[in-house]
């Protein structure tokens, strides 16, 4: 069930444009939906667990912000991205320091 929901949201992210909008589905509550749904169906005790994502959200936001800054910074400095050797030494116009400043061409 978790795999199906994750695949569904990921596919939604694939087909939507602009990419920043598609990214919203990267933080969709897929695992929460699957696990809480199964828990409620099984024994109806899911209410307690739903407190968790409120704390976990901070980690998720932090991870996404760090990811954004790292990738934008790597692109700006022309550093290759970890794990992708084919990418190399490009120069980009992304600014870091806020979440704005994304070149319009990337969004399309």
């Amino acid at each position, binding site marked *: 069930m978790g795999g199906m929901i994750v695949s569904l949201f990921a596919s939604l992210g694939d087909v939507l444009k602009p990419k920043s909008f598609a990214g919203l589905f990267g933080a969709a509550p897929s695992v929460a939906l699957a696990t809480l749904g199964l828990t409620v169906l099984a024994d109806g005790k899911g209410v307690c667990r739903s407190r968790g994502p409120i704390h976990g959200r901070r980690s998720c936001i932090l991870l996404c912000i760090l990811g954004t800054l790292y990738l934008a910074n790597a692109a700006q400095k022309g550093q290759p991205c970890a794990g992708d050797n084919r990418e190399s030494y490009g120069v980009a116009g992304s600014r870091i320091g806020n979440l704005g400043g994304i070149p319009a061409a*990337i969004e399309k």
Partner: protein
Amino acid sequence: MNVSCNLGALAKTKWYEYLVRFAFGGAITVTAGILAKRFGPVFGGLFLAFPAIFPASATLLAKHETRKKQNVGIVSSSRGRQAAAVDAAGATLGSVGLAAFALTIWKLLPYYHSALVFLAAKAVWLTLAILTWRIWRKHLCR
């Protein structure tokens, strides 16, 4: 910029990429369940906010964008990483909706039917995520 839907993008994703997403999502769900059983529901709940979709879609997006550039003869390009950074910006905004989703379930599930609460929570998540994105686009993204 208006939101649009391009179903043709689904064909660009290979079968094994779908398989990886499916297996990764399933593995995370099982792990969250096991942790909840072992260490209690509140600790297990932390993993319900695990970004299961984001890592898979960001890496695939970077790969597809790089491939697109290579197909037109540009070997060295940072576009893949830039596209992944934009995706991450969207996921950051979506996380606000995720918190509202959890809060809705936490507060309403003891009093109302579970199916109704899940529907309401999804509606809250989607509304807040889109609203945050629109505010970001209008006021912060220059």
